[in-house]
């Protein structure tokens, strides 16, 4: 699957790193590093992480892109 994080929007709450630790990792205090192409077996984790993001910075292919204004 393909994901991208809007790191302008990301404020380092690290919810994604708790919910999908194989995909999202905090690097230092608040910088986020993530795997932009995680395997399908992670999709449930990733969708949960995207839903939990307090600033809705995570875009998952086919999921959130309908919000293009």
């Amino acid at each position, binding site marked *: 699957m393909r994901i991208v994080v809007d790191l*302008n929007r990301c404020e380092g709450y690290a919810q994604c790193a708790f919910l999908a630790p194989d995909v999202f990792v905090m690097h230092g205090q*608040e910088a986020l590093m993530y795997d932009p192409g995680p395997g399908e077996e992670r999709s449930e984790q990733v969708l949960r992480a995207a839903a939990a993001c307090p600033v809705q910075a995570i875009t998952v292919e086919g999921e959130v892109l309908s919000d*293009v204004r």
Partner: protein
Amino acid sequence: MSAETALRDFRRRGRVVVVGASLAGLRGAEALRAGGFTGSLTVVGDEAREPYDRPPLSKQVLLGRTAADATTLPRRHGLDVRWRLGVAATGLNLAERRVSLADGDEIEYDRLLIATGARARPWFREAEAALDGVFVLRTADDAAWLNRRLAAGPRRVLVVGAGFTGSEIASACRERGLEVTVVERGPAPLVGALGGVVGAVAARLQRAHGVDLRCGVTVTSLEGDAAGRLRRAHLSDGSTLDAEVAVVGLGAVRNTEWLAGSGLAAGPRGVACDAGCRAFDVHGIVTDDVFVAGDVARSPHPLFGYQFLSLEHWGNAVEQAEIAAHNMISSGLARRPHLWVPAFWSAQFGINIKSIGVPPMGEEIVVTQGALEEDRFVVTYGFQGRVIAAVAFDQARWIDFYRRLIESAAPFPPDFPNVDRRAGGTRPVPADFPDPSLPSHGPTVTLSGYSPSERRLQFTPARA
């Protein structure tokens, strides 16, 4: 046919060509479809890959955590686009509304979106740039090659230029345990983008992480061995440095050459467009069927005295492409201005750096939160008595607050009490930017005056 009927007809079965298949091109195409455009939509890109994300290339990818070809951008489900990838646009005929391609093909359009972005500025001597071990970092291929070389464990990596890309590369090298020397012409890393005060923090961070940082020095030449492999670099202070890998981080060049002679106001600083993303022609007259978005665009911003801004920012590409797409399929009063407040981030040496506004416009700064020596702070930049920008180190949650100060032209020095104000108080000090007339690879925001046409601008490459 009335204008409204013509627009409706265009939305239904018009022809849109998007030139540029990176972030802005993709987001523009998506926004056109989301906005109800059902005509033909062609996206042209010179790289053979599907649109991919670049920020990870200097971070996750160089750390070996993510494959260089794994940053393909997510897309709208079922995006109906005719992709022309792996072929560059080579010319534009405004009168006949036609884009010519490198393979000889021509594509006609009713409306055009230019999103050709920028490319890495190459090392200025071609023979030296061609040495095995000399890299730039802009594309996924660049990142793949560089990552492979770093994984082989070179004895020393030389990074030429301490802008954001160079600094991130140095950070990745240190994290991999590689010896790295950074050579920067200016007095500090990031100085062109953030000024000397914050630049001094960046310098301290680099050195604390074991980077051999040399400021006020330039690389004068790169030397190879008989087999054409990089061996050493010669520096302007007379010293030499043995290195097996050199990464040239001297900023970006805007991809406007294909527009030469087209009649559009295109030049080294980008393609000028109005706040609605419509391109200007060389006479300063706005076109109505050519739109511009992303790194290649240069557009006036009301918050900054309507000066033309060129922004090499991820968020700008997204926002401007969406505005351009909306305006391409809207008329008159339904059109929207591009009022986005410039913002970007960088992750290096374990610190999350965020910027909002236009720091290089700042005359003075105040540390409004935290302390410089703690590597965790917010610095606010002032211009003519108002807040013009803020830069945060590991304080991302405050950026939105400062964005509102910038948008409301809040007074500078700021008048708010601060929970963690330190003994030093909030006395403004000079922001300490280098002379803007000196060529610099640093700023990712370029202010380029009020004239849409660049006919009088001549680009003079820096001398070694």
